[in-house]
């Protein structure tokens, strides 16, 4: 029995005249992911991408599994190909799905007839196949509202496809349409999740990490590389930019009032990230801020952090609770890495009593004590770039 993979495309169908571009990009992204497993031919019709393996030694399970991280896919499943004849469809259904059909309790059959010339209409095919299944598996009963398995039959131009339940895809829209943003990654739980969420909306990522050796170690940097690697499973290639930050943090600590340390530091991070965005063609910044989570994420603090930045700042976690963020971090497999206990730029020099309701004018006054432009310029002159793919 020959097997293929059927991929239902997601939200792209709403994209009107651009739809074709999105489809082409999605097919490109799928090809890139599965090409290391063998050669496949891909075709699209009826909002469905058909992935056909070109030889028999391809591990189709692995190929199917690798689709789970591609944005733009609503759901996917393996399917069996058979002749466009009712007997063959029945036989194939029996052979292909018998393991599942003999363990579940309820089923229904759904048919889609792309080839309108096929002799039977969709409901008639469903009825035929349904009674055949009932006959072969007498313990099964039909349930049209909430069946354990939906047996799907598709009648195409050259073949018929038979499949069982499908797996939910990653959702979102395909990456690679040319939109880029800069994501600030500290090494904590939140920033990889925020990056993932923007990648889900099709954004290519430039990741920025601030390193402060020797306060932070080589392991903290390597940890960020591993986090970005996890995110890149979804987002594709990420350019990771490491910013030398020791001097800036020391200067803030030496010259500014302690309670403003974190906010002034974050303002520097934003300004540097904005310059990096300009350099790399990014049109927005992404942070993992969640309103009220810590002292530097009160509304007043975010107002001050935001002031003076012209690019839009995306904060996809702003309305989420920690537990919700953690559950996504677990799903994308970054949680375990994030909780490794290395110092990062956000855990050193933290003030004992940070200002939770800072005033912008006070902060601007504090910043007057620093040679901000020189400090930023020197950091930007010494960036390190790592390609994570």
């Amino acid at each position, binding site marked *: 029995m020959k097997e293929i993979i059927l991929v239902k495309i997601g939200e792209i169908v709403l994209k009107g005249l651009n739809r074709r571009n999105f489809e082409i990009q999605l097919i490109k992204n799928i090809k890139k992911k599965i090409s290391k497993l063998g050669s496949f031919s891909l075709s699209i019709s009826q909002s469905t991408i058909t992935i056909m393996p070109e030889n028999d030694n391809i591990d189709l399970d692995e190929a199917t599994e690798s689709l789970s991280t591609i944005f733009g896919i609503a759901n996917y499943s393996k399917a069996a190909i058979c002749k466009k004849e009712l007997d063959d469809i029945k036989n194939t259904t029996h052979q292909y799905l018998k393991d599942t059909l003999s363990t579940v309790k309820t089923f229904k059959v759904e048919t889609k007839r792309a080839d309108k010339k096929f002799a039977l209409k969709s409901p008639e095919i469903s009825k035929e196949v349904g009674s055949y299944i009932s006959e072969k598996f007498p313990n099964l009963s039909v349930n049209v509202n909430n069946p354990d398995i939906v047996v799907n039959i598709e009648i195409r131009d050259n073949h018929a496809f038979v499949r069982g339940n499908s797996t939910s895809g990653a959702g979102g829209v395909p990456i690679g349409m040319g939109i880029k943003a800069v994501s600030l990654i500290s090494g904590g739980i939140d920033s990889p999740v925020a990056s993932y969420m923007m990648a889900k909306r099709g954004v290519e990522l430039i990741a920025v990490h601030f390193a402060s*050796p*020797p*306060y*932070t*170690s*080589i392991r903290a940097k390597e940890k960020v590389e591993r986090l970005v690697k996890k995110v890149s499973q979804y987002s594709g290639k990420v350019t990771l930019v490491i910013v030398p930050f020791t001097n800036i943090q020391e200067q803030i*600590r030496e010259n500014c009032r302690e309670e403003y340390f974190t906010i002034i530091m974050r303002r520097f991070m934003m300004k540097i990230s904005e310059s990096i965005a300009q350099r790399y063609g990014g049109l927005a910044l992404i942070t993992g801020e969640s309103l009220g989570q810590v002292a530097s994420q009160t509304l007043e603090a975010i107002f001050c952090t935001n002031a003076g930045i012209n690019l839009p700042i995306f904060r996809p976690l702003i309305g989420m609770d920690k537990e919700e963020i953690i559950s996504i971090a677990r799903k994308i497999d970054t949680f375990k890495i994030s909780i490794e*206990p*290395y*110092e990062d730029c956000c*855990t*050193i*020099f933290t003030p004992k009593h940070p200002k939770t309701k800072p005033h912008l004018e006070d902060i601007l006054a504090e910043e007057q004590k620093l040679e901000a432009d020189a400090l930023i310029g020197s950091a930007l002159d010494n960036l390190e770039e790592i390609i994570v793919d």
Partner: protein
Amino acid sequence: MREVYLDNSATTKVSEKAAKKATEMMEKIFGNPSSLHQKGFEAQKEVEKAKEIIAKEIGADTDEIYFTSGGTEANNLAILGAVNAMRRKGNKIVTSAIEHSSVYETCRYLESTGIQVVYLKSDITGRISKNQILSAIDEKTILVTMMMVNNEIGSILPVDQIRNCIEQKKSPAIFHVDAVQAFGKIPVKVSKLKADLISASAHKVHAPKGCGFLYKSKNTRIAPIFFGGEQQGKVRPGTEAASLIAAFGEAVSEFNLSENYGKVSNLRDYLMEELGKIEGVTINSSRDGIPYVVNFSTGKVKAETMLNFLSSKGIYVSGGSACAKGKKSRVLKNIGLLDEKITSSIRVSFSKYNSKQDIDDLIKYLKEGLSSFSGSN
């Protein structure tokens, strides 16, 4: 850059002879010690030879040495094996609050199965008195397990008094000594310790990682924790790691305890003297501890920052506090050290390969680190 390795309580450099032995075993004498043919016999002879060297070093019989995958396994086998063999005789373990996690966590696990565990507190330099031990042991005690030398602070625990305590209290307890940090540094002798079980690790004594041994006296019965073939009298089944074991034997045959002790004592005295000249530095290790470990606190610089800085200068030490973000060393907390001392504590641990120059380098960069990063703690 000149590299200075001062983290020998974590692990040591493998000696040239031991490394050579391991390579020779892997390339030439690679048979399975249990195989009946010549190739197997040769490997078995090497394992026996290593066993003899180690048995002689601690004053045991060769058939009292059981090779394990390291110190952690030896400690697990000793504790779980003893408790499982003794469960009908009582339900209490006596240990200290400053044990290595391979002992501490095993005891914590046994607590969850209904065993009562007494964790004896030490003084601020990591010492425990004989009286504390004596009053903790009773006739329900089935195991006394204690380290000979503490790994974080270098204190010596009175394990040579424990047999006497057990006898005084007429306790049926099995007596286990974790000698991982003592073996190869000070004499570890069965006749003196009168222990039933003694654990040690190869990679702390210039042999490769992945090997250790448990001494089990002939009269002591423990239950195995692994099940498999007939190897090592079924106490520890599994094909012996012959290459690592032979290298371990080689490293032990190079022991020269008294000469190294003298040399390292001089280094320790010199380091303590130099540290004493630096303002704000306090020494946490006691002078009556082992000279191989010196634990001190800078007070001003976070351990992780100092460690990263020294590392960038090619100097490798260990932070007394495990890591950042509030995870403080259980041992240092338990001896009662203040928080700011724990978070800024540094452990220097010596081996025979260290020199006075190493200490000069350390002190030079320690001072530089202190002036550059003060206030980060």
